[in-house]
């Protein structure tokens, strides 16, 4: 088995004559919490869309969960988990209905859906909330449920797109604990965030500037390399050099 769950080389995406992502290359190890940072307009979203199988690169090569990023977008979509703060669950469906819907989308059989849904509810201590509308759940519960739903098909890698925006500090920490737990169990976590302190939770962090990956290392080594006190400072040193207008 390959040690890398994500491995890309010279990945490039152009829109007309604008190069949004310019020849990025990196590897993500299995079980790693990989932070993907960048200023607004650095090409982060475009890169993430390519890695999730939502858009094909203009050039380059690579694999995500063993599937080819140049040709097998549909397979990638099936085999990864994805969660964002903005869109995750349907508020007007119940807890159970949301789980069933996503299990169906990921192609789980009826019996398998039933089994994993029950198991998920038990693990989250949610069994009594089975028929509650998701819209009426507290934000922290919704977040746990979103993560459970995004991983219902047991993907090897989960993409989290700014998962903790606007959440209180306690809920945010509970969420990170859940991420630690998943990573401890061998799931790879690929996460974008604007909270620089969250970058410090990651095993390794990459920082994009002007469509390129400008830095990639453990938070400790990045701080050392840039003689910075915090990841916030590292980020600012790198992003201040950005040439691309927002």
């Amino acid at each position, binding site marked *: 088995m390959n040690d890398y769950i994500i491995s890309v080389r010279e990945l490039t995406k152009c829109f007309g004559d604008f190069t949004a992502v310019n020849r990025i290359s990196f590897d993500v190890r299995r079980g790693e919490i990989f932070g993907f940072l960048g200023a*607004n307009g650095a090409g982060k979203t475009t890169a993430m869309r390519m890695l999730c199988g939502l858009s094909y690169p203009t050039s380059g090569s690579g694999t995500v969960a063993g599937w080819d990023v140049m040709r097998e977008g549909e397979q990638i979509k099936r085999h990864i988990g994805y969660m964002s703060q903005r869109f995750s669950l349907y508020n007007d469906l119940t807890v159970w209905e949301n789980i069933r819907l996503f299990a169906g989308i990921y192609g789980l059989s009826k019996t398998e859906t039933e089994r994993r849904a029950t198991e998920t509810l038990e693990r989250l201590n949610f069994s009594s909330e089975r028929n509650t509308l998701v819209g009426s759940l507290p934000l922290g519960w919704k977040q746990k449920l979103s993560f459970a739903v995004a991983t219902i098909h047991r993907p090897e890698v989960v993409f989290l797109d700014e998962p903790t*925006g606007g959440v209180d*500090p306690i*809920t945010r920490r509970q969420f990170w604990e859940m991420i630690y737990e998943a990573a401890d169990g061998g799931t790879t976590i690929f996460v974008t965030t604007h909270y*620089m302190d969250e970058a410090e*939770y990651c095993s390794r962090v990459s920082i994009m500037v002007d469509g390129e990956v400008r830095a990639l290392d453990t938070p*400790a080594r990045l701080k050392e390399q840039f003689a910075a006190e915090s990841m*916030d400072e590292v980020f600012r040193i790198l*992003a201040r050099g950005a040439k691309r207008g927002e």
Partner: protein
Amino acid sequence: MSAIKVENISKSFGKVKALDGISFEVERGELFGLIGPDGAGKTTLFRLLTTLLNPDEGRAEVDGFDIVKDYHAIRERVGYMPGRFSLYQDLTVEENLNFFAALFGVNVEDSYDLVAPIYRQIEPFKKRRAGKLSGGMKQKLALSCALIHRPSVLFLDEPTTGVDAVSRCEFWDMLSDLKQRGITILVSTPYMDEASRCDRVALCNEGRILCIDTPTDIVAGFDTPLYSVRADNMYQLLLSARGCRGVVECYPFGEIHHLIADREFDIEQFKAKLADVRGLCIEPAEPTIEDMFIKLMKQ
């Protein structure tokens, strides 16, 4: 006279109590931060103070005027930048600015000195439609429009949410400049680390204010022993540390975990108990606004 005076204000929407008996005052020329997560009631408070909503209970004054009775006077003297981009997307940058100037019956030229430091950054794109601007540029245009009638009080609802760390820092620099010019600013943010840019802050959660003070004094009020701990396996450390004597709480805090201890806690005993944890390291830590927020939320 304070610039903003809020007395025991409550506001409900159906069963949801958005604001639950809030009181505070903002001095003239102060840069005051409302810090809290979604659902804290920040937006509702802004809508009340800008006279777009009436309270169920309590009263408030802005610039000495009552928010219910004198709404007309208040609207003339406040600037408001809502959380969602609310300019006209199909007007150009320049047209938006002129429109807001006309609405308030002022000339762009008369206020130009005030908006110039901000507007100059987007002036090269003045013929571009607002809808085609990047996030950071929209933010600068919205701030310019909110300032065009020289308001005495500026209300900014989460201006830095979703904005990257560099642009956030630049935005706070702009606010400091405006404060120098004597404008009172009430600004909300979910980012705890931005508290230090304010003169005073109110930490709020679920419709209530947890505490109000200067950022330095809030942190100084954290009176329990706090340690930072780390190990090779941070997740296992979290679970192990929680089982130790004298550990009130242990939670992730970036690269490290923060550990709150009580009087029973003994650092040597702790190390001995976790002797088999590889790479264990524990040392006293300085509390932050976020530690205080967590502490207050749990009380």
